[in-house]
């Protein structure tokens, strides 16, 4: 039963620097890095030592809690460094890629296999890392049975990569992945596509497609879950990013773990924003500086979008789940009377001498300034305007802050992920770190309730 989903609450943040629809092969970086911190709550056990040679798809480390869950190398090459932080925690596994890539062959997978076999195959090949679960927004527990699986095929976040474009002509891979995933659940694989889109995800077998429309976060998978089949206590749902279905699909069809991904390089600091073919874990510097980002510019480089992405240094790496790199100016300067003068060049949901309501179509060049200092929660009603889920946002945030597990549970904590609170964080007058508060709340629940 497909269902059209239209949301009214939300906010489209229109920014300068949308990627133009042209793909270039990124200058192949030979430096790659896989960071365990991308796999939240997983404690890695290293398999590959410094100096060993690995093929693409060969195991780098596994999950300490579940030895079967492997995390694999995106490229073939030599492991040049295992970076460690405090208490010998593994920060990153760095790989220098070979000139010619060789792949570990997992063999073509029989898509008619049952769930157990499919699960074992995905765990062993490193593809399990792409499957996340709610509650807690972590990599799915291998022994969990999801009541349904959700994929968002519609990117509504600011400057997001257009999935219709990046996934085009990948129907076969997408179909293979969806067929395999559909084995795991009786509740169906739910896929959202934009209402007027031409998505390669729209006509897949073994899937239920929903047409979504409305402002961001209409494309968030959390919105889809909330409108289709919200998570209750004791239930689990899985979520997978649409672009990662391609990697899973290709592995199933060919036996190769091909970490190739089409990403958008966007943002107002990029001279010619467009799409690039690269690999996950790839070093960012080579790609951005050769393509119109000032080398000594005062810019913020983000692996991901401006609302949920991670800040990376110029020598940083594309993280495991992102399909966009955003570069915007830093805002580390003072502004004379910035708190009371009329504002025309910033976005606001109020009209308190802020005039973005006059030009809803205008694209803005925003920087990283917080536009004010951190304060206690004061105003009310502003979050609700941009928050489409059937949850009280401020109340749940406060419950997380005072760590009342019962209240967090009652208010809907099992249903949410930090990214659902990105817009409320953006509009927050008190500049509270909503996503961090929710992440810490989820971690607390994971630890206490599990």
């Amino acid at each position, binding site marked *: 039963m497909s269902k059209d989903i239209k949301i009214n609450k939300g906010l489209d943040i229109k920014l300068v620097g949308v990627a133009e629809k042209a793909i270039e092969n990124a200058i192949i970086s030979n430096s790659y890095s896989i960071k365990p911190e991308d796999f939240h709550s997983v404690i890695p056990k290293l398999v590959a030592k410094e100096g060993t040679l690995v093929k693409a798809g060969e195991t780098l480390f596994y999950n300490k809690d579940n030895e079967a869950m492997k995390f694999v190398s995106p490229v073939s090459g030599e492991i040049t460094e295992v970076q460690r932080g405090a208490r010998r925690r593994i920060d990153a596994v760095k790989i220098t890629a070979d000139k010619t890539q060789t792949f570990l062959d997992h063999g073509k997978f029989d898509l008619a296999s049952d769930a157990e076999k499919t699960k074992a195959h995905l765990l062993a090949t490193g593809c399990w890392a792409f499957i996340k679960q709610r509650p807690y927004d972590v990599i799915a527990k291998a022994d969990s049975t999801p009541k349904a699986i959700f994929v968002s095929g519609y990117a509504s976040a600011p400057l997001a990569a257009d999935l219709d474009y990046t996934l085009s002509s990948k129907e076969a891979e997408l179909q293979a992945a969806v067929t395999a995933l559909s084995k795991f659940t009786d509740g169906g694989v739910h896929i959202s596509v934009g209402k007027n889109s031409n998505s390669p995800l729209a006509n897949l077998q073994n899937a239920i497609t929903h047409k979504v429309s409305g402002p961001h976060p209409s494309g968030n998978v959390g919105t889809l879950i909330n409108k289709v089949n919200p998570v209750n206590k004791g239930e689990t749902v899985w979520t997978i990013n649409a672009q990662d279905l391609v990697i899973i699909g290709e592995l199933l069809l060919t036996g190769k773990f091909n970490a190739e991904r089409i990403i958008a390089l966007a943002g107002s600091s990029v001279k010619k924003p467009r799409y690039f073919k690269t690999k996950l874990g790839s070093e960012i510097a080579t790609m951005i500086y050769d393509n119109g980002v000032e080398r000594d510019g005062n810019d913020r480089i983000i692996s991901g979008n401006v609302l949920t992405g991670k800040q990376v240094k110029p020598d940083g790496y594309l993280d495991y789940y992102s399909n966009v790199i955003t570069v915007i100016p830093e805002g580390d300067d003072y502004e004379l009377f910035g708190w009371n003068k009329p504002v025309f060049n910033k976005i606001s949901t109020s009209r308190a001498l802020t005039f973005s309501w006059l030009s809803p179509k205008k694209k803005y060049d925003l920087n*990283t300034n917080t536009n004010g200092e951190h304060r206690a929660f004061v105003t009310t009603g502003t979050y609700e305007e941009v928050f489409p889920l059937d949850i009280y946002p401020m109340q749940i945030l406060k419950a997380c802050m005072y760590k009342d597990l019962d209240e967090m549970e009652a208010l809907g904590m099992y249903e949410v992920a930090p990214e659902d609170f990105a817009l409320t964080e953006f509009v927050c007058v008190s500049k509270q770190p909503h996503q961090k508060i929710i992440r810490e709340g989820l971690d607390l629940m994971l630890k206490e309730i599990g």
Partner: protein
Amino acid sequence: MGLKQNLHNFKEKNKDKKWLPAFSAIHTFLFLPNETTHNGTHIKAADDLKRTMNTVIMAMVPCLIFGMFNAGYQHHLAFGEIQQATGGFLSAEFWTLDNFSVGFWKVIPLVVVSYVVGLAIEILFAIKNSHEVEEGYLVTGMLVPLIVPIDTPLWMLAVAVAFGVVIGKEVFGGTGMNILNPALTIRAFLFFAYPTWMSGDKVWVHGAVERDQMIAAGQNVDAISGETILGSLAQGKEVAYSVWDMFYGIIPGSVGETSTLLILLGGLFLIFAKIGSWRIMLSSVVGALIMGLIFNGLVSAEVISEGSKFYGLMSTEFWQHLLIGGFAFGTVFMATDPVTASQTNKGKLIYGFLIGFLSIMIRVFNPAYPEGVMLAILLMNVFAPTIDHYVVQGNVKKRMKRLKAKVA
């Protein structure tokens, strides 16, 4: 950019100093800080708390200026120095420089004392608790002079502000944590500690109290009286003002609360700016109208006889309640305080309605002090979390029901 750089260097140099919040409070008024995002969203909307509070203050400025003119006008009128204004809102007798200067020199000290005492305490607490000075007092500090009688002694105001800020706000943890509206806490303190200065027929006109004292000292001068409309009604006297006078605000009353017209404009501005809650304002007006209608109904059903002490206020046309006393000001500027009001949208409707309803009820039945809006808002401040609790429970129950439906 000498100033910008110098201030920045000064801030960096004194990073670890205890008193830095005091400097930052001033620094951030000059410059929007250079703070950038780190984790979470990398961009932020333009609004901060300063801008929000500033918008509320802008909405109150017309009331403040009008209050200055009105203070002078009421003074000169009571002393028989000028004629009654007859030309409506734009009367030439009202908008004179003479009126303004009398009012200005009475009102500005109130504003200054309110801000200096309040902000000093805020800064002290900010330094003590080593956090930044929060902006809550910017609005409170402006509200206070607008809701007190013009001749309130400054020392009294200073004591009340200190009490209100410390007991009403800081003991709960400062801005965002308080249960009662700080401005109303200050006013309530004044009212219960110094009742003779806060009600009666002498305090609303500048000079009336002084004249009383002269008479008591044996001087042969005429007494001055400036009864508010509510005071007249409560005593069953004729009201000497037309409905338009009430609407324009050319009547005795607290400094900034008389002009329903300007309060209405301020309220519309706040709703348009999406700073003030239209839900609270609207439902409060509806609540007041309904209570007024009930009283009118009792009068026309002859339950209340003309001799009753409640007759004067009960028989007041229901919609006129909106124009008299502090109802309009309280509804627009005090009931909508987001910290002490209900925080859920549904809760705001209930909260506002009850404020309107109770304001008029208290107004009619309270013989000692014929204004109800202050007490109604303070009462509902206390009940706002309860209202929210039940609204949120509705959402929680929905979730439980969903779970049960699954299990069954």
